[in-house]
């Protein structure tokens, strides 16, 4: 990537951050937090995007950001009240700005009509939109100077006054056969120089010492000259003269000091020079330097917008920058993953070592064993810390939801308020990335199907504005995310009749309320009687359920008529490790994901019934579920294990289907590190992944859904695989 492209990429990354800031600021204002700090934060976000966009000549973005910024400035200066309507417009403007940034990033076409319409709305908010428009792009470039970083570069050229060089030779200069006139001539070659002679130190002729130096010159040179070029002229007389080089204005103080001092007393001056040569030679002094800078920053702002607060903003932004830069670093995800892999190996290695030490017959209390215990604790801590690197707050995906809610609310005509909680809850980055789609779908559903129309709500005595709650929390080593609405709840009669109609359940099936609620997760179920524009896009809740299960999670729904429904998702914090039940089958060690296991039981001969061929069912509390011999399903043995010789794991697979997996024995429960089989081999039916156990051997992690499917027959296996490939 060439450097400019890299900078551009950084700009867009920062834009995303600014957009997030903008949105959260506007939402805070909508929630009543309209203090100047919040307004300023919102203004800064738009302004930074505009400034950066200007630097990359992204004209449409600059234009829109400018109009947006003008409206925000009106609010900042108190001329525009942050009313609910104004904020709604601003929020929509933020959406358009986000679209424009993305359009500029991907080169995708943007919705110009929408941008233009919103730009008009924004202009209407301003006092005299027309004049702001005239200022247009030109002004956008002009106040680019108040981007803190650029100002440092731009200020000396733009704002520097003429150079003033005060040159006073000492006697030594002449003694070394240098000639002041030649130096002055050099200076004149640099540019238009105005030379003034200061002969005030010249004594009456009678007192004149022919060997002494009495004359001084002040040369004014054009401001655009480089200071080093001027210094070079005096390179050979360095130390043999008094030299002050400074800009007009900031040398004034030095001049004054000189004037006040007895100017004739050369020896006193000489003493001063020798005592502290650097204070005189080194110029400009650091202290006065920022003064012209601040001036440069304020001037264009003053001219364009009668608000001195802008300069403070620039300074505040400058102060905030180093904070954020110091607190976080951007790291390539691959490096983190490599580290996680290595730590996973360390954990395995440590487990192997422990096992070997135990085999070698060391006592538990021996120094070696105790040292190993400590090592084990340490490795676990390292593993946790490394996993924490990948962990991110769910905020990044929650943030996308307010916009979705606004859009869906606008489409359905239902006023909706989104309440989010627990945005800071952290979970693995991969989990976050794969949460966005299911969450989007569920929130759409909650508004489209969950919330009633405003009229129905009014009739039920509820406030017109519906509430959708999105919350996240850590609960017993997992993250629990809930999407709830305060709508009418699930219409169980209708759900049941639809399920019967679609042939999903028998008409007389005795179902509990909970079971009816969970019917909506069945493949091929959709409650919308007519396909609606918002949620009826051919994907049902079964797809949501599948994607949650693919993440090793579970989803359930609770619903109370008239009060609303809540979807609860429970997800693992990481995809790198898995809680598994270690079982043995025909001498092989296998791992079953604990999330799928409902219970384990020892089958009694009387509970197991043959259904022809190898097919068996087992009675579990009066319901019959298929009993699947894992050893047969995986081809480890040809003859089925007698049910009484094994242990059955009651599992709940995709779509809520239950089955019992028969294994030889249960070894225990363990957290295992997930290793891909595909990396060096390929996908194996019935096997989700592999892991490495404490003895250093590879154990396979069961893909329970496929095993259940395999037992149903090869045809359904292929269907499952196709679904998995498309899903």
């Amino acid at each position: 990537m060439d450097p400019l492209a890299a900078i551009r990429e950084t700009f867009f990354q920062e834009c995303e951050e600014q957009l997030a800031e903008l949105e959260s600021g506007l939402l805070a204002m909508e929630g009543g937090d309209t203090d100047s700090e919040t307004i300023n934060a919102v203004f800064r976000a738009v302004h930074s995007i505009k400034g950066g966009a200007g630097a990359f000549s992204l004209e449409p973005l600059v234009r829109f950001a400018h109009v947006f910024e003008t409206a925000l400035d009106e609010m900042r200066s108190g001329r525009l009240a942050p009313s609910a309507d104004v904020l709604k417009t601003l929020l929509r403007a933020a959406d358009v700005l986000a679209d424009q940034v993305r359009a500029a990033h991907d080169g995708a076409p943007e919705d110009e009509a929408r941008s233009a319409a919103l730009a008009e709305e924004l202009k209407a908010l301003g006092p005299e939109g027309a004049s702001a428009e005239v200022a247009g792009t030109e002004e956008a470039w002009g106040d680019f100077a108040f981007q803190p970083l650029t100002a440092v570069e731009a200020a000396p050229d733009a704002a520097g006054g003429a150079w003033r060089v005060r040159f006073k030779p000492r006697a030594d200069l002449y003694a070394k056969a240098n000639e002041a006139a030649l130096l002055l001539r050099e200076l004149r070659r640099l540019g238009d120089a105005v030379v003034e002679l200061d002969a005030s130190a010249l004594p009456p002729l009678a007192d004149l010492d022919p060997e002494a130096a009495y004359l001084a010159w002040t040369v004014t040179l054009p401001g655009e000259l480089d200071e080093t070029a001027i210094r070079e002229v005096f390179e050979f007389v360095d130390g043999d003269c008094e030299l002050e080089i400074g800009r007009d204005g900031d040398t004034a103080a030095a001049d004054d000091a000189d004037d006040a001092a007895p100017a004739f007393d050369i020896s006193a001056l000489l003493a001063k020079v020798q005592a502290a040569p650097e204070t005189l030679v080194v110029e400009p002094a650091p202290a006065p330097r920022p003064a012209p800078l601040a001036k440069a920053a304020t001037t264009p702002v003053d001219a364009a917008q009668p608000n001195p607060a802008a300069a403070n903003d620039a300074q505040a932004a400058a102060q905030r920058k180093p904070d954020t830069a110091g607190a976080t670093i951007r790291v390539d995800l691959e490096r983190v993953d490599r580290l996680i892999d290595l730590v996973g190996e360390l954990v395995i290695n440590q487990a192997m070592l422990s096992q070997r030490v135990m085999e070698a017959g060391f006592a538990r209390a021996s120094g070696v064993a105790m040292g190993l215990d400590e090592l084990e604790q340490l490795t676990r801590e390292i593993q946790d810390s490394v996993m924490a690197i990948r962990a991110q707050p769910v905020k990044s995906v929650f943030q996308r939801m307010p916009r979705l809610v606004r859009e869906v609310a606008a489409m359905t005509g239902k006023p909706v308020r989104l309440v989010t909680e627990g945005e800071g809850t952290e979970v693995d980055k991969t989990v976050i990335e794969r949460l966005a789609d299911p969450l989007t779908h569920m929130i759409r559903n909650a508004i489209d199907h969950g919330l009633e129309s405003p009229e129905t709500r009014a009739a039920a005595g509820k406030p017109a504005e519906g509430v959708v709650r999105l919350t996240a929390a850590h609960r017993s080593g997992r993250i629990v995310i809930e999407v709830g609405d305060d709508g009418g709840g699930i219409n169980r009669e209708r759900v049941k009749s639809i399920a019967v109609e679609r042939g999903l359940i028998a008409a007389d099936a005795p179902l509990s309320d909970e079971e009816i609620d969970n019917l909506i997760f069945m493949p091929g179920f959709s409650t919308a009687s007519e396909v609606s524009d918002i949620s009826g896009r051919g994907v049902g809740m079964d797809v949501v359920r599948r994607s949650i299960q693919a993440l090793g999670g579970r989803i359930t729904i609770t619903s109370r008529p008239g009060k609303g429904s809540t979807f609860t998702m429970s997800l693992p914090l990481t995809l790198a490790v898995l809680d598994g039940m270690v079982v043995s089958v025909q001498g092989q060690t296998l791992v079953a994901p604990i999330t799928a296991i409902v219970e384990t039981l020892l089958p009694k001969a009387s509970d197991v019934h043959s259904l022809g061929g190898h097919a068996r069912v087992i009675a579990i509390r009066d319901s019959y579920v298929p009993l699947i011999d894992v050893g047969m399903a995986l081809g480890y043995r040809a003859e089925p294990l007698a049910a009484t010789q094994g242990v059955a794991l009651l599992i709940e697979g995709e779509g809520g289907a239950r089955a019992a997996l028969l294994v030889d024995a249960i070894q225990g429960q363990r957290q295992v590190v997930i290793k891909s089989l595909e990396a060096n081999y390929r996908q194996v039916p019935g096997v989700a992944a592999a892991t490495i156990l404490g003895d250093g051997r590879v154990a396979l992690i069961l893909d329970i859904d496929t095993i259940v499917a395999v037992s149903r027959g090869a045809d359904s296996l292929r269907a499952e695989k196709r679904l998995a490939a498309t899903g």
Partner: protein
Amino acid sequence: MTQTNPTAAGGLRELISFRIGAQEFCVDIMAVREIRGWTAATALPQSPSFVRGVINLRGAVLPIVDLAARLGFEGGETTDRSVIIVAQIGDQVVGLLVDAVSDILTVTDDVIQPTPEVASDTAKTFVRGLLAIDGRMISLIGLERVLPDLELVAA
């Protein structure tokens, strides 16, 4: 034991030769990552007979191909002397189970004779050429097709 041909400056190749039963084979040394002793593999379900299973190679899951079975011989009995040649094939790493590793050969390309026309499909699929070294015939094996064909097995 090393056979060198100083007259041909270009086309020098290093090959690792190994034994399966009474026959000798070799593969390009550049494909070989390491050679390690045999450890019991975890059997993989629904896999061809020549795939012995997977082992743990320092944290990575490594499939083991029984090269004898792959080349169509009687399935090899593993002994204490059996070794696994860890080879890079494309972007995958695979263990090849062989009876013993015998030598490193440095040869020029012109020493490698083309495979004679024979009826055996296995020979056509895997044998890339023949070498005559000290009166022994050594077959040069191409590794590209050693892993089971994805499409064939998945169907």
